[in-house]
């Protein structure tokens, strides 16, 4: 999972390069007390693999295009059927590569969590490269009795290589509904000199994460999770069954130092093995 040499990056961003398309749909159903695949569809650059072991059904999303660049389209739809447990993660950090001017990569995610079901959305971090341009949209529909855990983390440039973002665009929007009513919405637009924007509004952080837990035990977890957070992160209970965490860190490594203990505490089971590398 080393960083691609610059020559490859140029190949990816040349206009003649075909745009990547990826589409994946998965539904989990309960059978004999276990969660199994009810339906699966995958096309283009999106693949789902299902490692054995662990609680419930685990689906690991693989982007065979190796990243996102301008003009790419990725769509994922996942449904946890009644009384199932479905965990979605990614095989590696998602890389948003430099895009041609005016070209936007689009990522659309739709999650549905049915009666008595639990869905964990635990992708690894998204890394924005200089000149990247991505628009991402997530919509979640929860049944009244559903449990849902969500994390999205963002690393702004390859900090270890001394890269800072002076020209990038990242638009993200998340909407979560329970029984049809909007219970959480968030949106961020980072554009242009992202480093300067973060210096002004985030103490110069190079990585950030959002965590949502929508579950009956959210309130009981507020105090314990606060105990593992640091001075650049916070937790708040938006409703008795809705917990929101926001974390800032200098880089991706620093982010995981705080994020992993928090996720272990909040998750209703072990974290996917991809997170343990």
């Amino acid at each position: 999972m080393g960083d691609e040499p610059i020559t490859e990056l140029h190949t990816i961003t040349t206009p003649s390069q075909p745009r990547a398309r990826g589409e994946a749909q998965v539904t989990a159903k309960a059978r004999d007390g276990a969660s199994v695949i009810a339906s699966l569809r995958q096309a283009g650059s999106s693949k789902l693999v299902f490692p054995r072991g662990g609680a419930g059904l685990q689906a690991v999303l693989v982007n065979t295009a190796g990243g996102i660049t301008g003009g790419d389209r990725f769509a994922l739809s996942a449904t946890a059927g009644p009384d199932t447990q479905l965990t979605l993660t990614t095989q590696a950090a998602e890389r948003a590569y430099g895009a041609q001017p005016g070209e936007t990569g689009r990522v659309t995610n739709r999650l549905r969590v049915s009666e008595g079901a639990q869905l964990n959305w635990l992708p690894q971090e998204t890394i924005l490269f200089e000149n990247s341009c991505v628009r991402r949209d997530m919509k979640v529909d929860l049944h009244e009795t559903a449990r849902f855990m969500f994390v999205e983390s963002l690393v702004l440039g390859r900090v270890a290589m001394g890269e800072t973002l002076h020209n990038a665009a990242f638009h993200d929007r998340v909407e979560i509904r329970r029984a049809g009513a909007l219970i959480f919405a968030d949106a961020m637009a980072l554009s242009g000199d992202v480093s300067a924007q973060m210096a002004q509004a985030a103490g110069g952080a190079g990585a950030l994460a959002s965590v949502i837990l929508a579950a009956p035990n959210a309130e009981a977890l507020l105090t314990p999770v606060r105990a593992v957070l640091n001075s650049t992160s916070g937790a708040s209970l938006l409703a008795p069954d809705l917990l929101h965490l926001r974390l800032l860190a200098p880089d991706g490594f620093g982010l995981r130092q705080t994020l992993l203990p928090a996720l272990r505490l909040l998750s209703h089971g072990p974290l996917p093995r991809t997170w343990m590398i």
Partner: protein
Amino acid sequence: MAAPTATTIPTSTGRSPMTTDATLTLAQWFSPAYPVGAFAYSHGLETAIEGGLVHDAESLRAWITPVLTHGSGRNDALFLAAAFHGDPAQADDLCRAFASSAERVMETTQQGAAFAATTRAIWPIDLPDYAYPVAVGRAAHLLDLPLELTTQYYLQAFASTLVSVGIRLIPLGQTQGHALIHALSPLCKTIATDTAQGDLDALSGTAFLADIHAMQHETLYSRTFRT
């Protein structure tokens, strides 16, 4: 339509009708005497002052500016304009869901309810207890007030509330504080213009540190402000 007794005068840009009644109504709504209780909320600023990050006029300006341009200021302006132009109930749902922490929910809910209760008691309008910017946008629409000026007043009042927190807690001299409010004024005008369409697809919250300060305020040991 303007109230029958009002005198309509053109604005310098000639874009929106403005009445002498309108400016006086806005001056009343955003005066500290209007019982909204804005003085009780620090938006998380108290945490930043307590932690030493904000300690003078310059660091106060550095905390407030991104909140206005990349955080609640700009987003509230969008909610206000969306409620002014369109369906206030829809804007209200999104505004509440968009609050990133419990105290932010309280801040917008309680100020909104207080504003709505007072305003519907004085003016003959049907104004439910919406979140604060939504209640202001709806009331401005019902009373035919000019949108951009309403938003400017709203943002200037928000900036003044935050500067007042600094004056009390840092502490900062009154004159220094008011120089800062004056310096932030053009920003309020720019944001009001940029958000006038009320396009809720343009919502974006990236004042991340201030949002975290608001979360951390919930466990601050000694608190002067409710948020």
